[in-house]
C-alpha cells in the first residue's frame, strides 16, 4: 500500500480535513490535504510541529502527542518511531475514532516508510560494491 493509501484510512473519520506524515526532523514525507493548504505551507507546518515537540522534550516531557486548536479546527499530531502523523480536523473532533484510526495508520505506515528507507539505502550501497561486499562479509 502507498503512503497516501494508508492516510486515506484517516479520511474515513468524520471531520478530518487533511493529513500528513513527516519524519522525526519534520521533513514532509506524504500528505493528503485540500488544495487551499499548499505543500510549502504544509512543509513549514511539519517542521514547526517537530520544533514544538523538541522544545517540549527539553522540558522533560517525552512527547507522544501534540494537539493544536485554532478556532473550530484542531491539528492533532501523533509521534511514532521515526516520524509524526498529523491530522487536521474540524470540530467536533471524534477523538476516540480518530485515535484508533491513527494507531492503525501508524502501524501500517511504518513498514512502508522503513521499506522505502531500505530501498534508498540499497540504491546508495549498490553504487559501491566493495563497501557492500565488506559489509556482507562482516555480517
Amino acid at each position, binding site marked *: 500500500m502507498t503512503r497516501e493509501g494508508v492516510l486515506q484510512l484517516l479520511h474515513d473519520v468524520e471531520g478530518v480535513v487533511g493529513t500528513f506524515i513527516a519524519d522525526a526532523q519534520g521533513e514532509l514525507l506524504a500528505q493528503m490535504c485540500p488544495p487551499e493548504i499548499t505543500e510549502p505551507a504544509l512543509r513549514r507546518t511539519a517542521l514547526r510541529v517537530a520544533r514544538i515537540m523538541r522544545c517540549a522534550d*527539553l522540558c522533560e516531557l517525552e512527547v507522544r502527542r501534540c494537539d493544536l486548536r*485554532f478556532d473550530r479546527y484542531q491539528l492533532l499530531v501523533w509521534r511514532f518511531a521515526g516520524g509524526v502523523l498529523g491530522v487536521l480536523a474540524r470540530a467536533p473532533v471524534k477523538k476516540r475514532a480518530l485515535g484508533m484510526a491513527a494507531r492503525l495508520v501508524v502501524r501500517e505506515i511504518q513498514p512502508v516508510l522503513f521499506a522505502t528507507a531500505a530501498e534508498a539505502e540499497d540504491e546508495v550501497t549498490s553504487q559501491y560494491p566493495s563497501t557492500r561486499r565488506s559489509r556482507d562479509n562482516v555480517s
Partner: protein
Amino acid sequence: MTNQASRPAPARPVSPSISSGKELEWGEVGELVRHFCADQGRHGFRLGGPELKGHLFIDQGHVVHAEYGEDFGLNALLSLLRAGPMRLEDWRGAWPRQVSIHLPPERLLDKVALLEPRVVRKVLLPAEPAPPARRSAPAAAQPPSPKSSSSPPGAALGPPTTMVRLTTRGQVLAARGKDAARVADAAALIHALAQLIAADLGRRGTPAVHVRGREKSLLVVRSEVNDIAAACGATRRLATLIGRAGLG
C-alpha cells in the same frame, strides 16, 4: 449569608489563636487559604473587608464555599483573594448546605493562576512547607478522611504543576514551580510557532497547544487578557485546564 446550612459547625475553634467570635488580626485571604488547606481540617471564617463582608469555608484541605458581597463560589474566592488585607474571624455558625467550589486545591490554584497572575504571585509564591495539623477535634466531630493520610494533598496526581504567565513580548508576569524559566522560554516559542502554523493552515483564532508526554503535559494558551499562560505538570492535574482550552 446565603446557602444556610444544616451541616454542624466545627466543634472547636480552628486554632488556639482563633477563639470563637474573637477578632483575628487583619490578614490576606491567600495566606489563610494556604495555611488552613494544609491541615486537612474543617474551618469556617467570617471575613470583613473595607466595604463588603464574606465567608470562607475549608473542609479537608479543600475550599468548599466562598461568599463575598453578592458573589459566591469561585468568583467570590477570586474577589476575596484580590481584596487585600481583611479582618478574619472564626465562624461558628451554620455551614453551607451545598459546596460551591468543587476543585481540589491544586486544580483550584491552577485555575486561579490562569485567571489572576497577581493573585498567584501573592498566594503561591514563595511555596511554604505544610504546617503541622493544628486541630485536635474529637473523632465524632471530625470523621477520618481518606485524604488525611500522611501523603500531602494531591500527591497521587503526580508532581506539582509549573505555571507561568508572560506577555506576548516574552516578559514574565508570574511564575511558580520547578524550571519555571525553561517552561516560560518553551511557552514563548511554542506560542509563536503555533501562530505561524495557524497562519499557514489558513486558520483564524488564537491557538492553544497541548503537548502530551508519557505522564506530563505542557499546555500553552492565550489568556483572557491576551497574554500567554502555560502550565507544565502531570497530565491528570492539568485535565481541567486542558478541557477548558478545548483540547480535552
